């Protein structure tokens, strides 16, 4: 438990809480971005550099931008967000319960206690990552390629502005 970890953890969690509680949606999305960056730094702290960079590239570079785009396209930034959902306390209760359970599981787990306190930082050469990708994990690689393609196409189709007067065909295959 080093100081760096504490600061980074506090930043991440604090930004997350802010993202979830702020009124203005743009503020929320910016705070979410900060949280994501904080997470990347935590990854760095863990020694997973590649993961950290991927996080930055994808999440902060793409997902956060997507969120901002969505906020802009749905004009949610302009309208004042109304009061929070009617089930505020229920939702908080559930989240609290989940956290409590997890904390209890973490704290009370004997397996965790068995793990050594500190160990050497494992090396993470990028070449090894590449090797693993096309070696052991070639199938997930292909699948995720397909998935990304499909997701991209799907997102475009869903978000496409409909032509006036024509009903949006869901899937049309005359053959």
């Amino acid at each position, binding site marked *: 438990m080093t100081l760096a970890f504490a600061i980074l953890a506090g930043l991440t969690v604090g930004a997350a809480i802010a993202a979830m509680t702020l009124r203005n949606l743009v503020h929320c999305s910016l705070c979410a971005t900060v949280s994501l960056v904080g997470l990347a730094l935590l990854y760095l702290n863990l020694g997973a550099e590649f993961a950290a960079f991927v996080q930055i590239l994808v999440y902060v570079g793409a997902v956060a931008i997507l969120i901002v785009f969505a906020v802009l396209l749905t004009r949610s930034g302009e309208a004042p967000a109304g009061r929070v*959902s009617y*089930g505020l306390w229920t*939702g908080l209760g*559930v989240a609290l*319960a*989940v956290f409590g*359970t997890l904390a*209890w*599981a973490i704290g009370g787990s004997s397996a965790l206690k068995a793990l050594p306190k500190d160990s050497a930082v494992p090396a993470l050469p990028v070449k090894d990552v590449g090797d693993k990708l096309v070696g052991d994990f070639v199938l997930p690689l292909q699948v995720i390629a397909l998935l990304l393609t499909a997701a991209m196409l799907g997102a475009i189709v869903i978000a496409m502005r409909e032509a006036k007067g024509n009903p949006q065909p869901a899937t049309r295959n005359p053959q």
Partner: protein
Amino acid sequence: MKGIVNQLWLIPALPLLAAGIIALLKRPQRKPAAALAIGSMALAFLVSCVAFVATLQPEAGKGAVQLTHNFAWFDLGGSALRLGWLLDPLTAGMLVMVTFVGSLIFIFSTGYMADDENFTRFFGFLALFAAAMLGLLIANNLLFLFMCWELVGVASYLLIGFWFHKPSAAAAAKKAFITTRIGDLGFFLGIVWLYHESGTLLFYDEGAGCLEQTVVTKLFWQATVGGLSVSTAISLLLFCGAVGKSGQVPLHVWLPDAMEGPTPVSALIHAATMVAAGVFLMARVHPLMATVVTPLGEAGSAFEFVWDGGAPFVIAWVGAITAVFAALIAVAQNDIKRILAYSTVSQLGYMMLGLGVGGPAVGMFHLLTHAFFKALLFLGAGSVIHGSHHEQDIRRMGGLRKLMPVTFATYAVGMMALAGFPLVFSGFWSKDEVLHAAMIWSPSKLPFALALFGAVLTSFYMTRQMWYVFFAPRAEAAHAEPAAHHDDHHAHGHAHEPYESPRVMTVPLAILAGATVLLSLFATPVWPWFHAYLGGHLDHLHVGWSADSAALLTMVLSVIAVAVGVGVSWRLYSRSSTSVDAVGSRFPKLFKALEGRLFVDEFYAATVFRLNAAVATLSDWFDRFVWGSVVELTALVAKALAFVSRSVDEQGINFGFDAGCQTTRGAGWLASKLQNGQTQCYLRILGTGVVVLIVALAWMGKN
């Protein structure tokens, strides 16, 4: 020849068949209807002659011929209802008489009813009546006899009320039926009692019948109410039926009113045949009336009868009273048919008297001769009525002697027979038998005196009638007044002179007149054929004078009675005018009373009818309020049950079902609340589920 008894059923069956066919004919077929009826009667007459001949040859020493043919009619569980035909001299004699007189009357009717539009129906009814009467005669079974008895009553009702659109005719028919019904009550009780005691309905059944020695002896020695023996009591009950049917006092009131029917009907039913059925019945069941029962050994009659006590006593008295009562009333009547009707009642009284004092032979002989001359008189009256354009009041007739000679001659023959003119008229002999038997009757001589007085009256009123109808000057006869109360459908012109009837009507009259005279040959004391015939000892018949001094005295007395009656009547009436009755002017009060039929009907109306009406009202009240209440109560209970059932159904079952449905719907509504379309709500549930799962797993892992 003896086998004829098996075919005896043909005799009533032929007219019955004719009646059935006539009933199915359409209206206008007169000739076939008449032909059927007359033809069937003629055939029946032939068969009856065959049967008659069969009874003329009794086996030596065994008494009268008595053939029976019994058979099982239908099965009743273990036993069978047996029916039978009986052929003995009594039956055969009656059969011949009924079919012969019936045929002649049928032929007469074709002329008399020629103008009537219901000709076919008339012959149908006549044939039905003939069938029933003949069935009654041949019956060997109590029940069958009763059935035919009632059928004859029905036919009489239908024929009396033939012109039913006349209220008087309809009322007369009803009166006849009801009055005879009253007598039939006693009759039926007698039948039931006899059946109960004897166990059989057959009269003669080779020793086991209810009129045979075993049963009669047993019944004779059994005693019942008032010390009467059962056989006497049963005979008295059966006599009730005879009182109704044969018009004895007090149930005679229907016979004069029955003259509302057409004259052939009066001739056939109410003179010759049906009313004689009562006398026939008593003759048939005479073994039951025995007052002394002594077995006579193996051969010969089973028992001997002494006619001076028991049921014959009652019968004799009733007969004597009836004879005089009716003769008195007949003196003052003005309707030609009513005079004859009361005369019939009187003669029926004579028959019953004869039966009571002298046995069946005496009564039956008078019945046979009476049938002929009374039928003759009625047909003659019918001829007179027909020729006088349906005029029936004798005060408006007169001088028909010259205008209707054949009718006059035959009517005179009948009148003389009825009055009892000596020697060549059968009526004299038969009445003489009755008087003779009454004179030697031991209990009392009063019936004899009454019968003699009745003979005087008979000749008196018959002479009166003859004078009014045939001899009186025709002063007002040209009046165009149609008949007041009978045959009003007649469409002849007025102011016509009476004319002789057509030959189809006068020929039967002549035949009957001849028969009346001929019959006189059969019962002279010189040749007492009928007695012998009935007793079955025809071979012991001897020709010769076998009468005693009592018989001679009787003959002389009856001749004197006739002479007195005729003479007084002739003197009185031939010297006075027709406007005021000769007797009426001398004894106005008496005449009025007699003319009013001695007020018997009025007496009945005041007592019996009133009682009947009161009982009817009481019954009505009872029915309405007592039984009606019971019925309503039952209905109420049913309604209550229905109400309870309905409430259970509506409240209980429906409500329960509805409640169940409501609950289901409510539960569904509640359950649907979960689906509020809010995604976050679903998420929350998910989250809760996850927590629960983890906790559960951890707990299970721990344990």
